[in-house]
């Protein structure tokens, strides 16, 4: 993120706001994956954070094998042609979609009728497996991410916006819009909504529930891959444990926004990103870490279903 020079309060605030929107966009992109899966399976998919980690690693290795990493430490890496960047991201998305579907097939589907806790524990298991499996395969050393986009900083008034941040925000916006259209306008999207509303009835209506759940995981995972690459472009190093913190925050964002709701995930992500950035900038980065959780508790106590969620009532 961008350091802030000593300027007046308003432009400082605007700067933190702009940084926060970019940060919040990555939360939102991740939160969608949590919210989609939770909407359908009522499962906190802990492994989602590791799919994000894999996304950035898949892109990294493509660039490495393509010869776009510096040969010796300290050398300025060659930047990747823009079309190739697109191809790397697309392949990372496909690979992550496959991983996401595989996780569901292997670790969650066998437990679909085993209550709520057992799949939660396997989700934790998969998460640990990928974190430490990542260490085994990729190594524990942080890896410098190749230059996908030459950094350039735009200035609007006194607010500095790097092109990577702009890219993050625009990409997120386009993907979220696409997803919303997909879910509301297409047949597979309708099937997803039906499963999320009532899986048993959806099944009785002839919807292929398994395929729909797989699709849900594929979409969420592909978006996580994008988030992984975008964040890696912004923060140069990647590690197998990089998903842990953003994963927790993104899930919190999904809950704050109202779990099961796509606009909720977007709103939750933005709210958290901006408030973290503002609190961190004006006050203390330590307290910024706590902001998400304070928000979470306040929102849950005032409106347990989240900002944009719907309340349900138990029949007595």
């Amino acid at each position: 993120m961008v350091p802030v020079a000593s300027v007046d309060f308003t432009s400082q605030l605007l700067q933190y706001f702009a940084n926060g929107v970019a940060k919040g966009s990555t939360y939102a992109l991740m939160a969608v994956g949590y919210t989609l899966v939770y909407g359908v399976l009522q499962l906190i998919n802990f492994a989602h954070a590791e799919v994000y980690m894999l996304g950035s690693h898949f892109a990294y290795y493509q660039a490495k094998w393509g010869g776009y990493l510096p040969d010796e430490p300290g050398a300025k890496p060659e930047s990747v042609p823009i079309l190739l960047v697109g191809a790397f991201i697309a392949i990372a998305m496909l690979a992550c979609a496959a991983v996401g579907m595989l996780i569901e097939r292997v670790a969650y589907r066998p437990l679909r009728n085993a209550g709520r806790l057992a799949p939660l524990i396997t989700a934790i298991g998969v998460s640990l497996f990928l974190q430490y499996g990542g260490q085994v395969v990729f190594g524990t050393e942080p890896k410098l991410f190749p230059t996908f986009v030459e950094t350039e900083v735009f200035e609007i008034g006194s607010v500095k916006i790097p092109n990577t941040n702009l890219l993050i925000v625009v990409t997120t916006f386009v993907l979220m819009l696409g997803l919303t259209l997909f879910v509301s306008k297409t047949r597979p999207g309708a099937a997803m909504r039906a499963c999320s509303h009532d899986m048993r009835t959806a099944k009785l209506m002839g919807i292929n529930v398994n395929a729909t759940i797989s699709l849900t995981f594929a979409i969420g995972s592909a978006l996580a891959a994008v988030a992984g690459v975008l964040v890696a472009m912004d923060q140069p190093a990647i590690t197998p444990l990089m998903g842990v913190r953003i994963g927790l925050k993104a899930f919190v964002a999904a809950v704050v926004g109202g779990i099961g709701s796509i606009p909720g995930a977007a709103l939750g992500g933005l709210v958290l990103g901006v408030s973290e950035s503002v609190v961190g900038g004006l006050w203390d980065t330590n307290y910024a870490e706590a902001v998400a959780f304070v928000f979470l508790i306040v929102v849950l106590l005032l409106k347990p279903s989240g900002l944009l969620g719907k309340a349900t009532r138990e029949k007595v």
Partner: protein
Amino acid sequence: MAKTVGLLLAGLVACYGLNWFLAEFIEVVYVDYLNLIGIAIVLAVGLNVINGLTGQFSLGHAGFMAIGAFVAGLVSIQLTYGEMSSGPLELAGLGTFLLSLLLAGLAAAVLGVVVGAPALRLKGDYLAIATLGFAEITRILLTAQDSLGGPTGIKRIPKMPLLPGTGAWDGGTSVFWIFLVVFTIVLFSARLQRSTYGRALIAIRENELAAETMGVRAARMKVMAFVYGAFFAGIAGGLYAHYQHSVRPDDFTSIRSIEVVVMLVLGGLGSITGAVLGAVAVTLVPQLLRPLEEQLQVNGLSMVVYALLLILMMIFRPQGIFGQRELSLKLFRRILPGGRK
């Protein structure tokens, strides 16, 4: 009551005997495993009252432990050295040690009231994520206190006090103190379970509305469960602080909270026996796999195997090792040939 005093005395003697035996015959590294298992048991059996008996979903147990660890550490440092300074580790006095543990438990219990209150409005995963939020806030606030060492935490926490006949051994009296608490919480939790309070807690788990209309004050009982679990988690934190001699806020991340839930589910949610077994398995398995990792020189391998075991275990036995049953004399009688049914 007389029986209670007798049982506690017997536990005291048994823990002393165990400590003496280990000091005489066993390598300290194995004793380290044992102590970590003991602390894990206290956490798991306490959380079982909240998650297992009462059917709440708390995912913030590490927060209670963190408060306990810091309170006990600070009290003990203050009363032993008078200030935080450098120098060799000293022994805490018996009074200091016991007081620090009591205050650790009480401080965590107060936090238990705060965290338990949302349980009156929230259910299931929502409660889980809120309790996790509380634990994270606790950890972050501790990290932000420069007076408490910030991210590096507090150091030079005195050793646990010695007992007559236990001296020159690296393990000190840790086994005695830790397992005395293990003994106490297992005894109390088994008794809690089989009392009017235990039945009320289970009633809340089974059907909260029916429990309330039958006169069970669900709100009060839920907070009680949180306070009970938090109190012992605070003591576990105090023991951990005295055992490790230093604590950092990052010793108590959400990963540890999640770990305690894993122990419960693995052992069989709602069963004390299961909680104990889960605590043993989750603590020991990665440690036992460590030599394999070192031999093959592959970092992270032991955790990979552990994670795989966890996934397989859940797929093939989703109700946990013990389900909701308890290991008791009755069960032994049933299993033994010719036993009564």
